[in-house]
């Protein structure tokens, strides 16, 4: 027999044919054992079933304890699965399927449910050709089924995560065909139908080739790239603002499988923000206008007093010319004060359009302008307001915008300390190793740790409704970035400190 096993055969059929019946049975037994297959043989006439030893052991049962009847099987099938089993069996018996095949859960003797792959076939007919026997196998596929289910769950989670992402993103293969895409992407770019997966993404990528072409090539070479705000002007001169990010993705084996693309039209956001900036400018202007009116009133008042004085002096005999001269000198000083205020206002508020070029500015002059606009407000609120700056310090930026940021910070600080007995606000400048720091400090109640993380967020405000839009700091930060500066809360309390840091101005830059 051994000779025969090792003997060369023309094929497996020829080999099996060559075996004796006993040898064949032994072979079969080995194969079943190796494949972990349990066998059942069902007599459809009386529902008696022959279960083999492996069938029983698969369920933790001893062969001799198992009744050889259909009920031994059916009573152990999960109630939710049994109907499906009978349906599939019926379909096969009725000749609708070549095989019976069903995966169902069965109760193991240890109480757990096992997934069983059940396969079978009609193996005998009566004289009328009616099926009377079915024979089949059981295989425990619990581990496989559980892995399959876990995988399906994971996939469902991922698909849903992507589908409901509020941003347009797509995952593409190396040929730039769709693997997955968010609902926003499909809607945004009009990708329709059910069979978009596997379709080329050229319709979208073609339209934005000028923006994404290089990024896609780089990503396929493993280099990600992105841009938060990129203007694209079409043939009609209409500008669209895009935010995009192209990233390679890797297979489990580590090869670059394709790219993920995030592509978003943020034109509306950019427009809203520009509008908000314009509005904040107006609001700042309003605050300052109030201060200016107050500030100009004071020299006007002085001039009025001196005018009255001179008028009366001219009626006296003799007229004291020296008194009139002294009076005119005071009126001149008042006039100069008023003109200084107007000049400061123009310097600070002169158009803040995008076309402005950054310039070098003297910090002390900038501070003087701010002081002349804010000190009236400080006085009105009974707050001590001081300004200090070393001579000769310069920063480079958009002057009106830097002015607006500082006025905004000072106004916030004044608000923070108003109503406080010893309220004080300080605007100061200092030189740091890598640039210049402009600071606004106040001795107000400070900012809580929780608020500190959010103060720069748009619409975050601790002021009462109607007193602030909450846009001030977030817009100030944007304006600061445009001037190449960084705005940050550098100290939460005692004193509260906001710092606008400018990089060092290169020698010779104008």
């Amino acid at each position: 027999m051994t000779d025969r096993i090792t003997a060369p055969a023309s094929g497996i059929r020829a080999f099996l044919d060559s075996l004796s019946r006993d040898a064949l049975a032994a072979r079969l037994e080995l194969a079943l054992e190796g494949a972990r297959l349990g066998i059942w043989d069902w007599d459809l006439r009386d529902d008696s079933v022959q279960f083999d030893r492996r069938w029983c052991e698969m369920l933790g049962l001893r062969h001799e304890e198992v009744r050889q009847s259909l009920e031994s099987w059916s009573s152990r099938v999960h109630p939710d699965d049994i109907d499906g089993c009978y349906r599939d069996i019926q379909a096969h018996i009725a000749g609708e399927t070549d095989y019976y095949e069903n995966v169902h859960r069965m109760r193991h003797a240890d109480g757990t449910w096992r997934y069983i792959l059940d396969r079978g076939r009609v193996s005998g007919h009566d004289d009328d050709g009616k099926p009377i026997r079915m024979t089949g196998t059981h295989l425990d596929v619990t581990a496989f089924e559980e892995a399959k289910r876990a995988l399906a769950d994971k996939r469902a989670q991922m698909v849903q995560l992507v589908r409901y992402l509020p941003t347009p993103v797509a995952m593409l293969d190396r040929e730039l065909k769709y693997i997955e895409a968010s609902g926003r992407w499909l809607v945004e770019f009009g990708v329709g139908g059910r069979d978009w997966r596997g379709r080329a993404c050229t319709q979208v990528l073609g339209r934005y080739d000028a923006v994404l072409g290089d990024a896609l090539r780089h990503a396929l070479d493993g280099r990600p790239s992105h841009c938060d705000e990129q203007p694209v002007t079409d043939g009609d001169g209409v500008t669209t603002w895009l935010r995009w990010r192209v990233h390679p993705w890797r297979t489990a084996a580590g090869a670059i499988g394709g790219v993920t693309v995030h592509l978003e039209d943020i034109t509306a956001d950019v427009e809203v923000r520009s509008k908000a900036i314009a509005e904040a400018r107006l609001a700042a202007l309003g605050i300052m206008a109030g201060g200016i009116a107050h500030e100009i009133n004071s020299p006007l008042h002085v001039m009025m007093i001196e005018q009255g004085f001179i008028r009366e002096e001219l009626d006296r005999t003799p007229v004291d010319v020296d008194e009139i001269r002294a009076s005119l000198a005071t009126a001149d000083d008042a006039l100069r004060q008023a003109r200084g205020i107007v000049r400061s206002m123009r310097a600070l508020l002169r158009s803040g359009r995008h076309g402005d070029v950054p310039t070098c500015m003297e910090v002390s002059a900038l501070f003087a302008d701010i002081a002349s606009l804010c000190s009236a407000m400080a006085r009105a609120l009974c707050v001590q307001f001081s300004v200090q700056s070393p001579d000769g310090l310069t920063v480079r930026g958009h002057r009106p915008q830097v002015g607006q940021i500082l006025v905004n910070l000072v106004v916030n600080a004044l608000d923070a300390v108003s109503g406080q007995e010893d309220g004080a606000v300080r605007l100061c400048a200092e030189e740091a190793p890598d640039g210049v720091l402009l600071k606004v400090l106040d001795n107000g109640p400070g900012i809580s740790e929780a608020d500190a993380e959010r103060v720069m967020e748009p619409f975050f405000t601790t002021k009462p409704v109607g007193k602030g839009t909450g846009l001030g700091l977030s817009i100030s930060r944007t304006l600061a970035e445009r001037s190449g500066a960084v705005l940050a809360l550098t100290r939460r309390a005692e004193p509260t400190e906001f710092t606008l840091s400018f990089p060092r101005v290169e020698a010779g830059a104008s």
Partner: protein
Amino acid sequence: MSRPIRVLLVDDEALILRALGRYLRRAGFEVSTAHNGAAALDVVGAAGTPDWVITDVRMPVMDGPALVRALRGDTGPQPHILMITGHSALSDAEVGDLALAGMLQKPIDGRRIVDFIQGHGGA
């Protein structure tokens, strides 16, 4: 008039002090000035209580009402007090509490102050 009426002018605006001071001096008053409430108390401490204190409301360090309360808390001779108000007027109750001789609204020229003091019977 045996002796000139003594007036203490209190305002945080230097030019206002200069202009009003000149007017009142020329009108025959003896004028001293202070740029806030605390400085005014120093002047009173050094030179004695004047006949009149003419003070602004809003000032840093010590404002007008705080100055008046400090003066009224003193047991010595009391000055007449004229409050010059800007956009923030005091309530009637406050005027009563502070025992003000009166209140005048900005902008105000020297003539009105002199008329007020003389209408009040001078010193």
